């Protein structure tokens, strides 16, 4: 890492323009991250949280500055041979890395401010603990640094550091809930499975391409045989889609995200999963230089499945953070569709369209990061105020937590992909690129693209239901529990952090054109022509024979004008009537209690009936009669559960088989020393035989 003394080892630095900004900002971010970790270890509790929070925010600002500089057109590369043994460290920043650094930096900075308020109100354990506070800046640092890596070994080291840091943070509240430990085990196993796949894939690629720096891989990619390239892509894509939370390797995500402390959930969901997309774009489109259509069709299938399955599970979830976690799965699915479409168009030679699809996917990554970080932070302040994540027991929070509710609504507007939310723009762009892709020849394209459009439309529709549920059941109506009734608004620092994210959401919704050139450069970094899709304060699709344009600012202006007309005209010209306060009509039988209101479960029930075959819900009714008569019921117990079916079908058999193999292999360890010596002997003989035959 290029901090302090290690800067001396810098062997080569190439750059144009702002030569000093990127290394200086990187070094600052790294130094701040290290200082934050030390402060987290050493400072007493009272000072620890604000100091670590400020340093972490500094890491975010530094990383964001690097990202913005890179998006502005600066490039930087360096090799530090002394930092890592054997391979050394290779760093490079281009616009693609810059985009992901800017996202991670902005999210880290806002969430760190939020986290100060969040951790301060927590008990002695959890996020405020010594370990968690020491790891938090490191996690933030790795989030920012992963895109900087420019060789396989550097990338894998940073990737693993990020995984370990996030694992420790997921486990922060393990004293409070046993489910945290289970989530930690799932996350640890899945992330390391991903690492193993990455390791195999990259090792194979590096061995075939004749070098492990990204430059060498890029140069040697065309010399690798197509079969090996395909294998590398499948291995690497499996690992990266798992990190992005795509079906079927998503099982860790709906466990780890809800159980982690809320700022950590926000970081993971808004910054870490993006790096899966980064890895995929970097490896698939850049290092491997694109590939045959089947790679990308597979990616689009994965994306489509994640989008629909993720949002369906979100529609069924009554745990607010689990709902948000599944929605992350959905959004990453949409991004994967975009990346897949981009690769597909490039494979068929339509490079401008490929650039448009990639720009749409990357813009959706940005939008998702903004609204999902805000959603998780708002869910965190609800959790902090009430101790509840269960939507069925929340409600009535709008008058009690007005700012949180307003910000949640703003983010939810982005998440439902309806104007004037920010998610609408990127999904609209994605749909445009897919619809215009119908001109690309090929049977697979003709089948897959309309299907993808339909899947995106379906997931957007269900997303609307999901966020109406989250907002309506969670924040409106009357409180369904004492905790919700006693809720207090979050402290100012948490609101400030959320306000920053809210401002980001609003800016992305109103003037996405500010991103325009940067987005073009990021797309250009993988060798595609700039799409010019987002430019000049508006949003324009500029294709040769298509003229579709969208200007978000005008959309917002038109919506506002329509709203003013709809509200104002009747007031101006309507007959003025005396208003009388009247009791709510309750059929005369007395006021309905909050228990009679719609819950998250009842709201989702019609949707669950429609998708009964896909979701396969389990329900169980248990009637206990009184002892004297079978006709008098003493108690009725109703249980209803929507299990994750993919997990059920895919993971449980594997886990059972592994457990069985473990049991069977216990017989090998019989406790006899002679047996163990025998194993050693047999092993040696077999090894020698292999060597003798092989060489």
């Amino acid at each position: 890492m290029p901090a302090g003394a290690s800067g001396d080892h810098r062997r080569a630095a190439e750059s144009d323009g702002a030569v000093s900004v990127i290394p200086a900002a990187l070094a600052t971010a790294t130094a701040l991250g290290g200082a934050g970790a030390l402060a987290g270890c050493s400072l007493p509790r009272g000072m620890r949280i604000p100091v670590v929070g400020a340093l972490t925010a500094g890491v975010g600002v530094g990383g964001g500055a690097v990202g913005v500089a890179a998006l502005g057109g600066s490039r930087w590369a360096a090799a530090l041979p002394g930092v890592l043994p054997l391979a050394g460290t290779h760093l490079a920043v281009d616009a693609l890395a810059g985009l992901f650094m800017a996202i991670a930096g902005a999210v880290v900075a806002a969430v760190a401010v939020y986290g100060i308020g969040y951790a301060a109100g927590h008990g002695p354990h959890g996020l405020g603990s010594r370990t968690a506070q020491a790891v938090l800046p490191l996690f933030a640092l790795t989030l920012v640094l992963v895109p900087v890596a420019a060789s396989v070994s550097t990338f894998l080291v940073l990737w693993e550091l990020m995984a370990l840091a996030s694992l420790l943070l997921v486990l922060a509240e393990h004293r409070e809930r046993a489910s945290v430990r289970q989530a930690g085990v799932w996350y640890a196993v899945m992330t390391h499975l991903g690492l193993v796949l990455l390791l195999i894939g990259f090792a194979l690629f590096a061995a075939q391409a004749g070098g492990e720096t990204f430059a060498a891989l890029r140069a040697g990619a065309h010399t690798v045989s197509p079969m090996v390239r395909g294998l590398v892509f499948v291995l690497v894509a499996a690992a990266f889609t798992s990190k992005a939370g795509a079906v079927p390797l998503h099982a860790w995500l709906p466990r780890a995200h809800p159980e982690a402390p809320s700022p950590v959930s926000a970081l993971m969901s808004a910054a870490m999963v993006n790096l899966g997309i980064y890895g995929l774009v970097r490896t698939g489109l850049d290092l491997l230089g694109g590939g045959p259509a089947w790679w990308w069709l597979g990616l689009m299938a994965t994306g489509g499945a994640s989008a629909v399955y993720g949002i369906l599970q979100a529609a069924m979830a009554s745990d607010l953070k689990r709902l948000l976690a599944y929605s992350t799965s959905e959004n990453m699915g949409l991004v994967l569709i975009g990346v897949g479409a981009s690769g597909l168009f490039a494979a068929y030679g339509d490079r401008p369209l490929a650039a448009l699809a990639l720009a749409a996917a990357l813009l959706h990554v940005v939008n998702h990061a903004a609204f999902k970080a805000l959603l998780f932070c708002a869910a965190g302040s609800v959790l902090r105020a009430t101790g509840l994540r269960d939507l069925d027991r929340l409600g009535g929070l709008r008058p009690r937590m007005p700012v949180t509710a307003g910000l949640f609504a703003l983010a939810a507007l982005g998440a439902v992909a309806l104007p004037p939310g920010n998610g609408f723009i990127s999904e609209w762009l994605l749909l445009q690129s897919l619809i215009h892709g119908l001109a690309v020849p090929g049977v697979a394209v003709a089948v897959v693209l309309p299907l993808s459009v339909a899947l995106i439309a379906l997931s957007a529709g269900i997303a609307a239901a999901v966020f109406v549920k989250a907002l309506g059941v969670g924040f409106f109506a009357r409180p369904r529990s004492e905790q919700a009734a006693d809720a207090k608004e979050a402290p100012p620092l948490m609101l400030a952090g959320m306000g920053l994210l809210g401002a980001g959401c609003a800016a992305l919704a109103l003037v996405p054109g500010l991103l325009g050139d940067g987005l073009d450069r990021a797309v250009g970094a993988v060798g595609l022509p700039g799409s010019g899709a987002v430019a000049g304060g508006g949003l324009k699709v500029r294709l040769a024979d298509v003229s579709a344009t969208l200007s978000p600012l005008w959309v917002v202006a038109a919506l506002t004008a329509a709203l003013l007309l709809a509200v104002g005209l009747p007031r101006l010209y309507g007959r003025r009537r005396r208003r009388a306060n009247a009791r709510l009509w309750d059929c005369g039988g007395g006021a309905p209690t909050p228990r009679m209101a719609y819950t998250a479960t009842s709201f989702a029930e019609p949707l669950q009936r429609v998708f009964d075959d896909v979701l396969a819900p389990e329900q169980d009714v248990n009637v206990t009669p009184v002892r004297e008569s079978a006709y008098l019921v003493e108690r009725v117990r109703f249980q209803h559960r929507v299990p994750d079916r993919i997990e059920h079908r895919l993971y449980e058999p594997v886990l059972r088989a592994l457990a069985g193999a473990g049991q069977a292999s216990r017989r090998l360890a019989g406790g006899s020393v002679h047996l163990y010596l025998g194993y050693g002997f047999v092993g040696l003989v077999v090894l020698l035989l292999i060597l003798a035959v092989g060489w």
Partner: protein
Amino acid sequence: MGLLRKIRDTGRVAEPAPPRPEGGVPAKARELGGSVQVRCVDAGSCNGCEIEIAAAFNPVYDAERYGARLVASPRHADVALVTGPVTRNMAQPLRRTVAAMGEPRLVVAVGDCAINCGEFAGGYGVEGAVSDVVPVDLQVPGCPPEPAEIIAALRRVTGR
């Protein structure tokens, strides 16, 4: 097609409209302009009056041709048709029902029980007549009143 044929073969079964009932339109009802939405409240009736009200709205008596129409919520209603002696359990719901109706509103007490508790006067579960609980504008005596009498009362409200 069976339904259409049935309509053609049956023709009109409504009895010819009797002459307009005596007594003027109550002052409050004039604002309604001849279109009256009716909500029925059973405040403790034996259901005899309900059968007659149902008959008043059937095709033979056809109260709707005079502008009266049954609705399912007091929020939509101009007139409450209240039947039966008001029982203790229905006193509060009756007050709330009448309070839920928009102004101008009228209350029509249908049947002897609604007017003076009839057979059930002095019963332990009876709160009193309808006029003891909410202000009554019109009364339809009878045990039970005939559909024609109920319609006559409604026509005084609609003015048609």
